[in-house]
């Protein structure tokens, strides 16, 4: 029995907890992508850099708060700075809409034009962030780091294997659930939410129903900015902040949004978890885990690893392909342009 518990603890520590945390991070990012896709109907390549922009503002405010001695006790100060980050990020995003995307909306441009325009915005945001905060790694986490540590867990349970849960992981998971629920409620229950869906479905007819497209677009961007800032900040708290990493995050985030089904908030979550779990479970070396489950004398010959971590990325994409082959519009049927 103890062996089973140990095995389970081992798996939780190295596979389940990290995968859930990572999955939630991806899901939060993918939500932003999926929202913009769902309402404005294009793949926003600037999302990764929007995340880094929002996070940068949060960091600057966090530093300021820290220097003034303001903090949230066990919680990270960054949470206090979050609204400021969201505000500035939203302003930036609205400006970019005003000066770039609005023009193409009036022209009824092809989604791919928006996509390329968003690459332009990505470059510019990229430059701004590096200009202000530089390309370096930044640490801004403070407060309590752990909900439970491996050592404490072992002492508590008397098992050989410990489980660590970081505060940032817990926060991310809870936030993800709350944000998705809120978004779902917003889109399906509120007037603004419905008008956004209508707008995405048939822009012309939305006008004819008295919907103000400018308002719809503005709300969408504000929510996207909020999502980006929240996702970026939580990610930064858990790992660290480095502009280049945020740019690289774009790929798994898109993968998550697409396997889940573009334009569908639930899909973003499912997608995030599919990507995270496939990366981690397939490259995990099950040697120790199996050793716990087998009789004492048994010893594993190798690492029992399905594929080396070299192919971690490849694996998640293979899973993605398989999912798409079975469900061509993602796990939750998404929209397609």
């Amino acid at each position, binding site marked *: 029995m103890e062996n089973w518990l140990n095995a389970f603890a081992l798996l939780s520590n190295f596979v389940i907890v990290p995968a859930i945390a990572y999955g939630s991070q991806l899901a939060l990012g993918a939500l932003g992508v999926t929202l913009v896709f769902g309402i404005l109907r294009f793949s926003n390549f600037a999302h990764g850099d929007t995340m880094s922009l929002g996070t940068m503002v949060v960091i600057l405010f966090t530093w300021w708060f820290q220097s003034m001695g303001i903090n949230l006790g066990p919680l990270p100060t960054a949470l206090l700075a979050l609204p400021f980050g969201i505000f500035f990020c939203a302003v930036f995003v609205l400006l970019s809409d005003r000066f770039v995307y609005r023009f193409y909306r009036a022209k009824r441009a092809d989604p791919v034009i928006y996509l390329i325009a968003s690459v332009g915005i990505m470059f510019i945001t990229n430059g701004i962030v590096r200009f202000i905060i530089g390309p370096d790694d930044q640490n801004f986490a403070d407060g309590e780091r752990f909900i439970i540590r491996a050592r404490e867990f072992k002492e508590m349970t008397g098992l050989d294997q410990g489980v660590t849960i970081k505060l940032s992981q817990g926060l991310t998971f809870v936030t993800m659930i709350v944000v998705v629920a809120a978004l779902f409620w917003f889109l399906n229950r509120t*007037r603004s939410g*419905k*008008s956004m*869906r*209508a707008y995405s*479905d*048939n822009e*012309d*007819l*939305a*006008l*004819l*129903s*008295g*919907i*103000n*497209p400018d308002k719809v677009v503005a709300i969408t961007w504000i929510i996207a900015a909020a999502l980006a800032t929240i996702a970026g900040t939580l990610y930064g708290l858990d790992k660290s902040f480095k502009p280049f990493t945020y740019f690289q995050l774009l790929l798994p985030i898109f993968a998550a949004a697409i396997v889940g089904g573009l334009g569908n908030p639930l899909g973003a979550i499912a997608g995030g978890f599919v990507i995270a779990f496939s990366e981690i479970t397939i490259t995990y070396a099950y040697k120790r885990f199996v050793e716990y489950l087998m009789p004492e004398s048994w010893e594993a010959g190798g690492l029992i690893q399905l594929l080396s971590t070299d192919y971690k990325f490849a694996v998640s994409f293979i899973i993605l392909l398989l999912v798409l082959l079975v469900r061509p519009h993602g796990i939750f049927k998404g*929209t397609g342009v």
Partner: protein
Amino acid sequence: MSYLIGEGMTGGYGSVDILHDCTIAVDKGEIAVIVGPNGAGKSTAMKAVFGMLNIHTGRIMLDGEDITALTPQARVAKGMAFVPQTNNIFPSMSVEQNLEMGAFLRRDDINGTLQEVYDLFPILKQKRNQNAGELSGGQRQQVAVGRALMTQPKVLMLDEPTAGVSPIVMDELFDLIIDIARTGLSILMVEQNARQALNIADKGYVLVQGRNRFTDTGHALMNNPDVRRSFLGG
């Protein structure tokens, strides 16, 4: 002066003008019908009246007020409703949500109107939770008209509302239009089922190549042999 007038409209989609000094008007409680060959500019005229297209000369007046500069959504707020000829539903929203979107600007209880629309088009009630994009052609058309009715407008503009609907529904639709007009609304519609439409029309316009060719009462047009032969199919 009529309740709604599009006066001397000239304009088009790009550099080429489609409409040439075209005038369309409808009064309170009146039904006005536009007929004409394909590509004559009927739909274009409707869009121009609704502000979905730039006209460089002419003006649009509603109830004595110049609304030429208003956006379409502002015109909706002024009590105009429009059913376009194509793309007239929200395909990935359910039938009921489509109808609700029609009442987007209304703040009062919409259940009564919803019920009326369902009574008029019983099939929609059956299909209320289905995505409108999965409906048959005629059913979509009913959703589109239903959506416009949900706004409880003062002016109702319909671009070929009966295209693709079965005879029985078409009759009911025309009945309804008459009823609506009797309550004091203005109705402006384009029709290819022209004889039926002109039959109930107070006023008819024949548009050819973006110009007013004939303007008269519905019956007069019906009885004009030229019009009959060239535009109403004999």
